């Protein structure tokens, strides 16, 4: 049994490790012939997704333009080895490039740079002897680690909450992971990072107007109770003479406030059990 497994592993290893057929394509020669990139990669300037299969040239439609006889199997001058490194074993050829990783719009990048060599600089001097350069996710970082998207202009750090979800094409994860968010939004903020220095004064007003969804970050009871319950700090309007009173219309302002912003009230008050509610109600 053990021998069978060993044999199987060896055979599979040999199968996977054998050299695959690939295209021998000397970019440098074709560049010297003054061919433009788009002569072979025809629709690259309009391609908006990495899943466009036409990004790689078709043998019958593109290569045949110049190498008509070589690609014609019926021709006497047919020459598969002109381009295929293992023409005698064509089944090992992988017809499609890997589509792993984030999506990529050639159009968007060419609109910005109009120069393929910004990303594909390695094809200069590519004599085809080595397998084609395989693009990796980390290679995007060579530009995007310092070159920010157009949206990241002045004030972006302050107003990115407004713009989030605005751009369906945005791929924040290309440069950012959860740690980026946590750097400002999760830690105890010894030095202020998210709010202005006056937020203690206006946070109640902002909360009752729903300016921010506070509980996105302040999801723990202690975030509110550490001041409002433990330290007994009441909102300013609780000190007003019209706030609560049996002789005031509707018992005072607190009733309508409770209807409008129950989330603000219940930071401190437990409706069914709170003495300050139960004494009158």
């Amino acid at each position, binding site marked *: 049994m053990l021998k069978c497994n060993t044999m199987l592993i060896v055979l599979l290893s040999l199968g996977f490790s054998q050299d695959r057929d690939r295209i021998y394509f000397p970019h440098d020669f074709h560049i010297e012939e003054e061919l433009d990139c788009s002569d072979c990669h025809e629709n690259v300037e309009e391609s908006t*997704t990495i899943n466009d299969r036409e990004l790689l040239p078709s043998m019958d439609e593109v290569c045949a333009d110049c190498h008509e006889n070589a690609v014609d199997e019926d021709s006497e001058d047919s020459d598969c080895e002109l381009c295929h490194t293992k023409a005698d074993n064509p089944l090992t050829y992988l017809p499609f490039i890997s589509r*792993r990783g984030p*999506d990529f719009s050639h159009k968007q990048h060419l609109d910005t740079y109009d120069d393929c060599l910004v990303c594909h600089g390695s094809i200069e001097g590519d004599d085809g002897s080595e397998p084609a350069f395989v693009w990796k996710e980390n290679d995007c970082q060579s530009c995007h680690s310092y070159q920010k998207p157009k949206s990241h*202009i*002045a*004030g972006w750090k*302050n*107003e990115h909450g*407004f*713009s989030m*979800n*605005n*751009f*369906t*094409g945005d791929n924040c994860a290309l440069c950012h992971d*959860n740690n980026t968010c*946590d750097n400002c*939004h*999760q*830690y*105890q903020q*010894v*030095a202020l990072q998210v709010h*202005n*220095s*006056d937020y*203690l*004064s*206006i946070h109640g*007003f*902002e909360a*009752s*107007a*729903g300016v921010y*969804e506070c*509980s*996105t*970050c302040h*999801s*723990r*009871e*202690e*975030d*509110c109770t*550490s001041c409002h319950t433990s*330290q007994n*700090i009441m909102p*300013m*309007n609780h000190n*007003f*003479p*019209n706030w609560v009173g049996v002789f005031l219309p509707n018992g005072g*302002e607190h009733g*309508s*406030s409770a*209807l*409008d*912003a129950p*989330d603000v009230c*219940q930071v401190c008050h437990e409706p069914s059990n709170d003495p300050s509610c139960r004494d009158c109600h």
Partner: protein
Amino acid sequence: MTGCNLNKFDKVMRYYFLTFLVFILTILPRTGIAQSNLEVTTSVFYPRLKTFDIKSTYLSSLLNYHQSFGSFKLSTRFEYGSETSQYINPFRMYEFNVNWKHHPFSITLGRFNYWSSYANVNVDGFQAGFSTKRFGKIELIGGFKSVLDFSDTTYVQPSFFSDGVYINKILFQTSWSFYKKNKFINISYMTEGGNDTLRPLVGFASNWKMFGLIIHETIVMDLDQSELNYTRLSISKILKSHRLKFGVHQLRLNGIHPWPWVEKMDIPVTYTAGWAWSLKPQMEILQKVNFRAGTNSTVFYNSQLFYGQYYVSIIAGIRENNEVYGGTVGMAKKAGKTVKFGGNVSFNIFNYNDIIEPINASSVYGWLDWNLIEKLNIKFFGRYIVNAYYKKDGRAGVIVYVKM
């Protein structure tokens, strides 16, 4: 410094924490076999809260370490510091997980932070994903909502597995999401603990472009109650250098919120309208109005102007007899190659009409970041507030930041 009552648990945690520190600081970076990123932040600050007459020095050390080993990635964020009003235990763990990624699979084990359209939550558990461009992403998340300073286990509750505490912390989510250019869709089934019961929720989130409009929506439905729990809709339009946005959101709290005693409450609808105008690469104007409907509806207006590293913000809020007007001026600037400094000044007036005299509130915040040598920064900061709550409150400190 406020006292830290160390019990057996803390001692054990501190021992493991220090062992871990020694290990990663001395051995791993020298192996050269893996890509690592280490940030250590030590801070000390002195608060003075006049209302409570608190005069204490607070110390805190944060360690943020990421290490990649081939397809594996270790992520950690620890803090060891003084007792605060939010964290009673000195040891806090924000993140401690191992992630394995091999396309199309990915698995994360440990304590991790999870952001989605439905929640931002720290979880002790696992996250497993299977993702292909053609079929989208299937994701499973399971575990307990984290107690960052382990206070449930050592102080507040006698035992984690008693009184239904663990039920209130259970979190399970399975979701399918699909992303294609200009289209994103997510459907999730969630089970979340709260009020000593497990509550089934189903969520739908999408982001798509139609007729030049970008539409984002999130809906969460409580299957137990057969009612909507949360809805958010925003519609945006980009017109050259202008971005317009209109949004509506409403929350019905029945479990997913910080206050365990609240069984259920309906919060009125909030409408948001915004307009951002990018005049130049370094200049932008943002106008935003929030309106929460209700018996006494609340309106809050905020206008911001950004110019390079300078900004001005103006606010105005009106609610029945209460009004607030104010503004902030802020900036950040480089002085040479090694020094950056900045801060902001705010002033607000609260007008309660005839009820009481108007109240002022003002604050100033400043910082200076000095890049001493290549991987060592020292940041000085200070804040001073005068308002009706704290009367006068001053806090200042220094942060030492090392990156390796």
